[in-house]
């Protein structure tokens, strides 16, 4: 950009800053920004400058200190020095919009904090509106290994963030309608409901023909498309290539002043690190498509099931198994077979209502709880010093104040009640209540959850686990022996006439339920989770 062009841009931005940009000025600004990457960069820096000055003022008539303390209500909170010094603001409840930046946020937050200090803050329920920040959902995962600890499983809602898939495949459905199948090793970023960025690796894209264009940012350039099927690769040496199977795809290399190239079916382009681009042979067939992905998933599911079976067989050899249900075969007999059954007596569960439904894999079955009458009745008399309960649970919703996992019919001390509250706390009640904080969140609805609780009478501890990891530990003050007795899985006993207790019927599925009369260790719980996970 020439000096005079910069001067013009600077003036336009000055007008923008002062809210005095005319209609023609706006048009001119847009033109300039569209044409030039340099102008866009200047714009972004200018905005940041103004935003910073607005929030922090230009106060250097004041000492610049690395840390300042600000009083919040009647507490003092040290402020992080990451963003530098903060002016000490006088906080008063001025009208919205009158004060700038920091003051506004501080007022809003402090007003809320103030309320918190006075009143007990109401429990926030699950959100009932959109806008949880989710922009995409993981729809398929095959043999995936991720670089992070909390590997996204199928059903996981993604916000705009970075991912590193070391191996395997993951298909992400963006809310804007595009499906992207990533093939490890791949480093990518979900940007928005219509956009992703790929830093390194391969992906295959299916973009819908309606709605806003789907955008992929790569080191080589920006790719835009509506209504197409194409594949992308950013190689180890940073070369970006785009291969089109169907529809049209527009590629704009990052080099200055270069027009976009439109690729049609069967065409492909490659952009190297120097931003030179060239036509290349179209290799879209080398990228795994949805059909192929489904097939691989089927195969991998079958293999997983073998792993589950092996682990289960091993567990069933233990002497402390009280019950082990997989709910794989109950339609005809209306009995949930107890795999641990050894004695002559009938230790099977009785299924009432409950529909058979797909379980953790397309080849496994689970049991569905929907109607108020759905339940599985079991009977396990006998007192135990310790108890372990484990289950794979899929929640469709937490409708009730208490949602039953397994509830003993009787209320007396020692009788076991395992349930989830409406706000996502898991509770074990045996006279004393052992309740977690909120561990089931809205993103856990609609996916398979591994829940476990260990009542350790010897060590006097109760530990709750979610997905194989301990979430809370409680001390048992007064130890009592516990009993399951007559109990229901997924529901509660029908109360006597006149009893007005609320329903505790579960809304969801259970695919494996096991009980052991000894305390399982954290390692054993983790192993169970890993070796029976979908």
């Amino acid at each position: 950009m020439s000096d005079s062009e910069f001067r013009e841009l600077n003036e336009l931005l000055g007008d923008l800053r002062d809210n005095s940009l005319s209609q023609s000025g706006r048009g001119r600004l847009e033109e300039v920004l569209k044409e030039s990457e340099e102008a866009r960069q200047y714009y972004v820096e200018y905005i940041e400058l103004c935003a910073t000055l607005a929030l922090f003022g230009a106060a250097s008539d004041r000492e610049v200190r690395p840390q300042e303390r600000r009083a919040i209500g009647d507490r003092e909170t040290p402020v992080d020095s990451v963003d530098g010094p903060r002016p000490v603001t006088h906080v008063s409840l001025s009208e919205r919009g009158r004060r700038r930046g920091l003051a506004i946020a501080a007022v809003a937050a402090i007003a809320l904090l103030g309320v918190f200090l006075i009143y007990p803050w109401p429990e926030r329920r699950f959100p009932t509106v959109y806008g949880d920040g989710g922009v995409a959902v993981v729809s398929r995962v095959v043999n995936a290994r991720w670089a992070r600890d909390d590997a996204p499983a199928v059903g996981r809602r993604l916000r705009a963030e970075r991912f590193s898939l070391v191996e395997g495949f993951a298909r992400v459905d963006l809310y804007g309608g595009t499906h992207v199948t990533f093939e490890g090793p791949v480093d990518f970023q979900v940007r928005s409901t219509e956009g992703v960025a790929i830093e390194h690796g391969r992906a295959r894209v299916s973009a819908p023909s309606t709605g806003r264009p789907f955008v992929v940012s790569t080191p080589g350039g920006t790719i835009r498309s509506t209504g197409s099927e194409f594949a992308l690769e950013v190689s180890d040496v940073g070369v970006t290539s785009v291969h089109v199977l169907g529809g049209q795809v527009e590629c704009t290399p990052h080099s200055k002043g270069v027009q976009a190239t439109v690729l049609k079916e069967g065409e492909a382009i490659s952009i190297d690190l120097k931003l030179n681009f060239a036509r290349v042979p179209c290799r879209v067939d080398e990228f795994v498509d949805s059909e192929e992905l489904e097939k691989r998933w089927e195969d991998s599911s079958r293999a997983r099931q073998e792993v589950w079976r092996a682990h289960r067989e091993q567990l069933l050899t233990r002497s402390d198994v009280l019950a082990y249900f997989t709910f794989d075969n109950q339609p005809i007999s209306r009995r949930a077979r107890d795999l641990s059954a050894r004695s002559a007596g009938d230790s099977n569960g009785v299924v009432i209502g409950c529909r058979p439904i797909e379980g953790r894999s397309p080849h496994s079955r689970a049991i569905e709880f929907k109607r108020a009458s759905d339940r599985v009745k079991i009977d396990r008399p006998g007192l135990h010093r310790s108890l372990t309960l484990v289950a794979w649970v899929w929640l469709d919703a937490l409708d009730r104040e208490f949602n039953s996992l397994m509830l003993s019919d009787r209320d007396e001390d020692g009788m076991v009640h395992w349930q989830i509250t409406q706000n996502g706390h898991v509770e074990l009640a045996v006279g004393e209540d052992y309740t977690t904080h909120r561990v089931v969140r809205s993103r856990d609805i609609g996916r398979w959850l591994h829940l476990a609780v260990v009542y350790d009478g010897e060590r006097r501890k109760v530990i709750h686990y979610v997905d194989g990891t301990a979430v809370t530990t409680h001390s048992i003050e007064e130890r009592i022996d516990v009993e399951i007795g007559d109990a229901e899985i997924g529901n509660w006993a029908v109360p006597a006439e006149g009893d007005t207790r609320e329903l505790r019927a579960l809304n969801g599925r259970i695919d494996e339920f096991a009980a052991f009369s000894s305390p399982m260790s954290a390692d054993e719980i983790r192993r169970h989770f890993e070796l029976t996970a979908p």
Partner: protein
Amino acid sequence: MDRPDFVPASRDEEFLRLFLQHERRIFSFILGLVPNWNDAEDMLQDTATTLWEKYDDFETGTNFHAWALTVARYKVLEYRKKKRRDLIFEDGLFETISDSLATQAEKSELRFDALRQCLSNLDAKDRELIRLRYRPDATTRSVAEGVGRTTNAVYKTLNRVHRQLLLCVRNSLAREAGAN
């Protein structure tokens, strides 16, 4: 009932700390996409409120900044839908600028430090003008009236000083990069 071992002392303080830590970046992002001060400030507050309401779903230790930008983006998109005809950026340019703004956030701390230095390097009169201009409710005209100059003169000076600061920050960063 036992108090579980893992819950932090106060989620509310945690939220306040996180929000304030990222506020400048979030505001930059919004201002760059909206570019109308009042609307941008309103949107910042809306974003703060929504983040606060949804904070229960936020996993401590995960990327607050990314989440906040997603929420801010939603607000901006809603705003654009309402303003249909008056939009300053058409869709294609909007996307590009949105990407650039998101990337800009990455060197934010270094730039902030450089800006502090650049401000102190300014001529005292220029620095005073900037200070006055960025007080709450100030306008170029009100500042001009306050210092006894014409609005146009103050406007031109402010333009020059902004450019000066921008280039100074750029040069600082280039020097840093060169030195390393």
